[in-house]
């Protein structure tokens, strides 16, 4: 096989991957350092969008559009609303950053040391690809008739789990309504008292 042509797809993936992840790192540094919370939330939206692009490069297309819709869309909207209600400026911290930095550096060093044992990125014989995943790749089209394997697992093999997931969303919705709905009623009562 022609070497130059043969390495094409893998090289393109690697270049996109490294470029996008480096942009992610830059965005994250800005998010950590900024004190204006509106700017922080906007950059977090950008972070989510970049992350969605990374998912696309890493073949997780379903995760990519969920991240773009939920991470960059809904989460940004919710955070913006909360920032407008609670104040836009973060006050400078009283304590210095030395203590937290030490803890973070120590934890990070241990975790980075652990990545040496991780299998190389993208190798087809990594342990994760040799256990149950081949079952779904080989049989899910015949067993469910759905060409998208992620959808087949989510909606068919693990349908009850997805039902549980919607219960989580429902519970969260009820919790938010209880927390913020009661507030409006109390304000009304205060107005009536006055």
């Amino acid at each position, binding site marked *: 096989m022609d070497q130059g042509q043969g390495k094409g797809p*893998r090289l393109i993936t690697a270049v996109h991957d490294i470029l996008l992840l480096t942009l992610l790192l830059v965005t994250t540094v800005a998010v950590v350092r900024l004190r204006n919370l509106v700017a922080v939330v906007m950059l977090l939206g950008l972070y989510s969008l970049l992350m969605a692009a990374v998912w696309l490069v890493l073949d*997780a297309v379903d995760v990519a559009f969920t991240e773009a819709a939920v991470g960059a869309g809904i*989460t940004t909207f919710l955070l913006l609303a909360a920032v407008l209600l609670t104040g836009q400026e973060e006050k400078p911290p009283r304590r210095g950053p030395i203590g937290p930095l030490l803890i973070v550096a120590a934890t990070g060093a241990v975790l980075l040391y652990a*990545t040496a044992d991780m299998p*190389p990125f*993208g190798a087809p014989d990594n342990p994760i690809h040799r256990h149950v995943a081949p079952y779904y790749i080989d049989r899910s089209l015949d067993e469910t008739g759905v060409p998208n394997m992620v959808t087949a697992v*989510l909606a068919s093999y693990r349908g009850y789990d997805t039902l549980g997931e919607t219960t989580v969303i429902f519970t*969260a*919705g009820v*919790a938010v309504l209880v927390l913020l709905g009661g507030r409006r009623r109390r304000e009304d009562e205060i107005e009536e008292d006055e």
Partner: protein
Amino acid sequence: MDVIGHYNYWVSIVLMMAGFYMVIASANLVKKLVGLNVFQTAVFLLYITMSKVSVPDCAIDCGTAPIFKEGFTVYSNPLPSVLILTAIVVSVSTTAVALAIIVRIKEAYGSVEEDEMLRRDGE
């Protein structure tokens, strides 16, 4: 340990630690929540990185998104995608509840800074 083979893992850990730093070093509750979100996404990155298949030295059938298509036999692992889809939905739910609690804290304490909340508790 080659750079391309482990770059994703390194980035994932650096992002994770950036989120961790925001959670423990910032006194502002909204900033802490942003840190938690960054931490979560970093964990997602770790999982999705493991799911990717890219066969070395091949031209077309080198690993593609897990959707059946004529002419392709090598697919990336669909299971981490399924897991992370669920995790994203749970993460936005917890974020929404946390933000609602923060809005109530702002009403009760007049601030979302940890120092001022503690000071008001002491009064």
